């Protein structure tokens, strides 16, 4: 099986290059395993990975032009040679390892936690099963970054536009019956950048390895904002 892997070390290389590797595949092999085989051949090759089952969100990368999680991408589904590159638009630290600082900053900006104004009860804050259901399709995000780094609006304005991952989480807390900061959250999202750079391109929906729909969540935020404005 043939792979072409993006190699770049900003400290020593003048420019990035694609390096070809040949590895032996086996039935059910995932791309992460193929990359581990590559590393056996060249131990200077760097990529992030951890759980190996699509839960930790560490091994997001661009595979044949599409952002994916290597650990849940069967190599049998990919056209050879398999081109493996880092996430587009992110500064490369080395090879497939990119700097995700801006992505996490945007996540932090949406205050991804419950805000309570009422005094906290003795025990937990209860939620009805119906209200809990409203969080389905929102809470499952693993913050792998596949969506935001495939979003053209995030490419152009990563310092100002929150991006699909952070906005999905913004709606996850707006939709939570236990949260009491709806107005503040909506006020924070006003302006042309943070939320409204989204032009419903829907690359996020296309690539999400968990099958989530950030565009729908973003549209729900806009509707909620409108209903609170008029």
């Amino acid at each position: 099986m043939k792979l072409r892997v993006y190699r770049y070390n900003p400290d020593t290389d003048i420019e990035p290059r694609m390096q070809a590797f040949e590895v032996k595949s086996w039935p059910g092999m995932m791309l992460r395993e193929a990359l581990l085989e590559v590393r056996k051949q060249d131990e200077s090759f760097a990529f992030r990975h951890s759980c190996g089952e699509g839960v930790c969100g560490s091994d997001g990368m661009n595979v044949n032009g599409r952002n994916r999680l290597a650990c849940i991408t069967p190599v049998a589904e990919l056209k050879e040679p398999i081109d493996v590159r880092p996430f587009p638009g992110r500064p490369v630290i080395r090879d497939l390892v990119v700097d995700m600082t801006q992505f996490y900053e945007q996540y932090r900006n949406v205050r991804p936690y419950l805000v309570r104004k009422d005094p906290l009860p003795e025990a937990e804050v209860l939620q009805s099963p119906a209200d809990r259901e409203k969080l389905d399709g929102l809470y499952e995000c693993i913050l792998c970054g596949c969506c935001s780094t495939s979003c053209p609006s995030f490419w152009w304005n990563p310092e100002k536009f929150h991006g699909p991952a952070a906005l999905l989480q913004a709606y996850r807390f707006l939709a939570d019956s236990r949260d009491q900061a709806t107005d503040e959250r909506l006020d924070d999202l006003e302006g042309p950048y943070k939320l409204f750079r989204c032009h419903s391109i829907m690359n996020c929906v296309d690539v999400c390895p968990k099958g989530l729909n950030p565009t729908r969540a973003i549209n729900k935020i806009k509707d909620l904002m409108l209903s609170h404005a008029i």
Partner: protein
Amino acid sequence: MSRRASGLRAWALQRATAVYLAGFALYLVIHALTQPPADYAAWQAWVARPWVNLGLLLLVPALLIHVWVGMRDLLIDYVRVTWARVLLLALLAFGLIASGLWAVQALILARMG
């Protein structure tokens, strides 16, 4: 007064004007296919009809607002140098206002015959 350009208002106006533009465009296409004006006099008579004239007068600001929001989005996305963005936004605004006034003048003149 916020120093930010509008987000929600621009988006809502873009959506609302899109509905009007889509509806009116459909009417224009159907009208052009079924009763195309034979000459200038026929066109003028059609434009002078009160409802058509009102619809066209409303079309002008709807179109201008829609173009403004869409072009503003484009310039915010792609033009990163502040002075260039301000210059292009100013040119766009003047251009749109001029076209709007000119279109309204034409509609009023057609109505007066």
